């Protein structure tokens, strides 16, 4: 039965780690802007030609 005690301690510590991770991520501003990162991930970031196109064509909007 004593093993339950150890398990509980471990589970609380693990949960606590996640809590700290959550608080840190809030502090670093991960939740400040929920829109842009969702859009940003759609960009290709290793195509040179695309950028050239953007530069010349898509300027007005």
């Amino acid at each position: 039965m004593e093993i339950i005690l150890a398990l509980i301690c471990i589970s609380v510590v693990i949960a606590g780690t996640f809590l700290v991770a959550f608080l840190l991520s809030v502090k670093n501003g991960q939740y400040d802007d929920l829109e842009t990162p969702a859009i940003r991930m759609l960009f290709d970031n290793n195509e040179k030609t695309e950028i050239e196109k953007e530069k010349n064509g898509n300027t007005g909007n």
Partner: protein
Amino acid sequence: MHCVSCIYLLENLHKIQKGIVCSEVNFVKKDLLIKYNPHEISLRKIVETLCAIGYVPTINLKDAENKLVKKSNHTLIYKIGIAGFCFANIMALSLPEYFDGMAVLTRQFTIIFRYLGAILALPVILYSAQDYFISAWQSIRVRRISMDFIIAVGLAGLVIQSYYDVLSGRGSGYFDSLTGLVFFLLISRFIQQRTFNALSFDRDYKSYFPLAATRLVNNKEESININNLNPGDHILLRHEELIPADSLLLSDAAYIDYSFVTGESEPQKRESGNLIYAGGRNKGQSIELIVSQKVSHSYLTKLWNSDAFRKKSAKSMGQWADQIAVYFTIAILVIASATAVYWWVYNPSIIMKAVTSVLIIACPCVLALTIPYTFGAVLRVFGRNGLYLKNATSTEQLADIDTIVFDKTGTLTSDNDFEIKWEDGKPGEYEQQLLSSLIAQSLHPVSRQLRKEISIDEIKFPIINWEETVGSGVSATIDGNDVKLGKYLFINPENAQEAENDDTYIGINGELHSRFSIKHNLRKDAGETVKKLKSAFNTFLLTGDGERDKEELFKYFTSSEMRFRQSPHDKLEFIANEKANGHKIMMIGDGINDAGALKESNFGITITDDINAFTPASDAILDANQLAKLPRFAAMAKSVKTIILGAFIFSAMYNCIGLSFAVRGVLHPWIAAILMPVSSITVVLYSQLAVNLTAKKYKL
């Protein structure tokens, strides 16, 4: 910033412009953060690049002042995180005991679990829930019963009873209910706080004024921060620039557009030596001014800072919540004392337990949850439809409205929607060609409006001797004709007895050719909207203008409902008077001239064509295209009261069930632990559903 390509372009600035290290967009706030190397590129060059690709940055005084004051609104999220963590763990620790764990678990384990729960509850009580205790303490000091006060009493009851139970070894306490309650309450508070990030509702003159002015020192131009402008400084103002401080005019004449400050739609003529108040916009030629007051002492800024223009902001959950709280408290006190009396007669040993149980279970948590959830849902429905509320509780003010006051210029009429009325028929093709050549270079508003009317793109004829006389008109020799456009006296100086009016005349070769007047149309749907609103509300119209569009307005307002030539202060006073007569007033306006009235009114709506543009402080911002929905917004806000009443019945029902246990002194922790989440979840679902159905009903 509109779409994905905007973000793409702005985040790849470093590939376009050398010297920029990286850039990051916040799409919601419409912010762009740029890191650059000052040795390679100047700030000016960056701004120029941005302008070149079509993203003109807003530069104003306000932003310069709170530079880098980062709003850290994270505390609430921390509190929610901690409360959630403790709630989940305590729940897990209390479950074994609820499932008759006594048979399986040894006594020793039970005690350890209880103490663990008691320890885990500490951060919730001391940190997460502190706002409720602080707020309760404040309401005790002002001797007023608020919702937070009753919540705090309930929480305190839970805390005392729980620690007493655990420390004396009588039971497991209500730590799971306690932490769960705090967790749900904090989430509702979070929802209440969430609003439209990108919109500013508390803008003041600082966001309207430019950052810098052009000062002339020894005939050399230099840029100066307008806060550093001193009386006596000599400044230069170009076309479309804003007058930063009260000044004396040095140039011969100037046209100043005060529409934003006073509501008059026509530019005002000022002559040399006149005092020009800050906030107007220079139209036409560049003018020179001598500053007579510092920016912070100008008429406009003083007006803005006057006490009448400040409205105290209520921080509570709203009036309704506090009204209900009063009844709640009375009911609880009656029930608690009845319980106490009953047990004092029959079994004095459980008085304490029964009374604290009543306090615990009667906590108006269900109501405290519904009000923010309902308002939050309404806020989102309205936002989807183009009415952006400042915060969730403003729904309440909107629901109580019985009188609606409109501003005219920019609110019922639109600056971009006008009609040119030709008195003697529209000029022929050839004359139109001449006119379009004449006005091509003029910046006067009438010229620009006329340009839209005749819309001839090509200028065929060469223009000789083009001249713009401020306050009179423009003239030039075009294709051998002497063409003039302007006031009557400008065309025909000899014939001075002709009545002076606002019409614009066209003269060709010294003869009057034709004349026209410009009429601002009411916004599409504006008239219908006013008519619809009239059935349920008193309506008034206040305008800074003269009686120009009176006939048009008579269709919608009676003469007793219209007030002309109203200064910002008149408007403010009108609202204050109506308020004193017991009316609840909604003010709909658009400019700084309405700012005072907007603040004084119970519910101020700013109407705007571009929701990200400057708007004076108000309770809500309405997209001008959605004006027609206004009657439905008002109707929906009124039905929110019914929704909240429904929640009140729910809350009463749950309380009756809970109280039936509590007064008997048999409120087991597991009963509380089941009742609490079930009631919270049902009530949240109820309010969400009710708001969605109501929105459907009003087609919002």
